[in-house]
């Protein structure tokens, strides 16, 4: 028994051909679109395939050319069965069909179908049939001819575009790919069409893409993503297109390899600049350190040491920036942790201890905030050690911060003497306190002091919650 597959988006047409051919003893399978047809031929090898030309998503011409890529179907006959057959003249041979029948009244069309099948079976038709069968039953329409020409013109334009363009149906299966998309994805059309976009692992893995599409369905904002494939970088933009009758997704893949390479080069350069600034500050800090060792005047030693601590604080910001992946923002907790341990290690004198507690909400800060903040913390800890912990043992400092909106309210506290001649803005003339005021102004904040069983300072800083 001969096997037949009929592909048409009109149910009545499928029913007509199915009942016509089943009566003649054929085994008939039907498909309402190209995707269903391609799914069927993965497990069913028809001897003859009838294909309509005008179908949603995968058009008949495209379906025929994809079917021709299947080795298993190389001996199958493919017949176009179309309502625009009168207008396409003999083009069906160009896209790989063996014959073309014009749709018309069922009785005439039925005769043409069964006649052609008999010809195939009996061997009277061995090669392609150039002339469209049944054109005597229909007439050529100028408007259809114009529409076909317009569509072909659009195809030429789409295939000339350097960006890869895919269309996905609502189940995210690929139903169209222009030439650039095929070249980018390096997948043959037979595999590409009907594949799920996420299965092509673009971007990094299918799961990420499924999540991305889930976001699209939930109407989340569509951000472009840059993906790497075979050493090339592509920016992928996805548009959700809804028409009166259908919905689909248009995927635009733009080669941004040259921009990405420039960006990587610039990132390397910026990292290098941060690295060099940090190294230069470290070099000056080392020289100042040598100078401290060479100076006997206690007051000069103290000034140089304070200067060195401030430089180390700025160097730490640069060090964290070049070691990280973000040139604009630092992790606040990591930064303050490094700062506290570094300052306390260098400030503490033999026999003393300083315990520090950090209780900060997770956030990032930009570099314009990080440098003043580093200096503020340096001044506060130095003052606690110098003027607060006057006993032999040392003390405890705590930095706490909670976020409201884009602002963190910060409280610094020690358990030292809180002698107002050193800590109070009203009663002290220390340079350090003047610096604290100026540095807080830089980050848009006031700073207040109160004696709360130790020195307690409150200020705020701009943050991004993470």
């Amino acid at each position, binding site marked *: 028994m001969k096997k037949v597959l009929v592909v048409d988006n009109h149910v009545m047409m499928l029913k007509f051909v199915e009942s016509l051919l089943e009566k003649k003893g054929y085994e008939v399978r039907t498909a309402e679109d190209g995707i269903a047809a391609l799914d069927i031929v993965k497990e069913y090898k028809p001897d003859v395939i009838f294909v309509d030309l005008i179908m949603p998503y995968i058009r008949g011409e495209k379906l025929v050319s994809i079917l021709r890529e299947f080795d298993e179907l190389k001996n199958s006959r493919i017949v176009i069965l179309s309502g625009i057959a009168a207008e396409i003249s003999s083009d069906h041979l160009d896209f790989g069909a063996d014959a073309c029948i014009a749709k018309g009244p069922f009785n005439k*069309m039925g005769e043409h179908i069964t006649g052609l099948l008999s010809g195939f079976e009996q061997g009277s038709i061995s090669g392609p049939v150039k002339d469209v069968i049944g054109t005597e039953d229909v007439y050529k329409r100028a408007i259809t001819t114009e529409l076909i020409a317009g569509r072909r013109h659009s195809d030429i334009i789409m295939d000339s575009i350097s960006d890869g363009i895919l269309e996905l149906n609502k189940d995210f299966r690929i139903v169209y790919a222009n030439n650039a998309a095929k070249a980018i994805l390096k997948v043959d059309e037979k595999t590409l069409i009907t594949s799920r976009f996420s299965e092509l692992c673009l971007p990094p893995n299918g799961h990420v893409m499924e999540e991305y599409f889930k976001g699209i369905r939930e109407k989340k904002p569509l951000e472009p993503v840059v993906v790497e494939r075979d050493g090339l970088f592509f920016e992928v933009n996805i548009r959700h297109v809804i028409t009166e009758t259908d919905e689909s997704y248009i995927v635009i893949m733009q080669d941004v390899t040259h921009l990405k390479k420039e960006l990587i080069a610039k990132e390397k350069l910026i990292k290098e600049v941060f690295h060099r600034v940090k190294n230069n500050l470290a070099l000056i800090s080392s020289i100042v350190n040598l100078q401290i060792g060479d100076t006997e005047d206690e007051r000069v030693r103290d000034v140089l040491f304070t200067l060195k601590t401030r430089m180390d604080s700025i160097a730490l910001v640069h060090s964290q920036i070049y070691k990280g992946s973000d040139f604009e923002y630092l992790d606040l907790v990591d930064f303050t942790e490094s700062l506290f341990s570094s300052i306390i290690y260098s400030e503490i004198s033999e026999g003393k201890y300083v315990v520090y507690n950090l209780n900060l909400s997770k956030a990032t800060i930009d570099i314009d905030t990080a440098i003043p903040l580093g200096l503020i913390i340096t001044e506060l800890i130095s003052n606690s050690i110098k003027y607060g912990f006057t006993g032999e043992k040392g003390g405890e400092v705590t930095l706490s911060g909670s976020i409201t909106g884009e602002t963190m309210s910060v409280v610094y506290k020690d358990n030292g003497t809180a002698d107002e001649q050193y800590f109070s803005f009203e009663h002290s003339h220390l340079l350090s306190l003047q610096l604290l005021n100026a540095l807080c102004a830089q980050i848009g904040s006031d700073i207040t002091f109160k004696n709360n069983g130790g020195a307690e300072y409150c200020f705020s800083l701009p943050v991004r919650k993470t």
Partner: protein
Amino acid sequence: MEKNNESAYNLDELASRIEFDREDYLPLLSLFVEQTILDLEEIREQIPERNEKVISERIHNIKGAALNLELDRIADILTAASVLNHAGKHGEMVSSIDKCMKEADTLKRLLE
């Protein structure tokens, strides 16, 4: 010449027009009527919107199937409706669509 009432349609005669047995013809006609009514309802909804594209697609669907089944009167009504649609005379289309719906309803009653 068909008359515009129920007796104008004879199922055996319609089936013989396309050289089908009655039992093979009825499922096809049933599919046609079902889809045609849906398409005509869609056209009625789109007329106030003057949605030429969707109206044209629906007319094309019904007309093609009507010609397949040699239901010439329905095809002729829709040819006129198609001209009005492309001319932007959507108000004048309403009576054509009503006429076509009447034909489809007649066929539906015959099938019942």
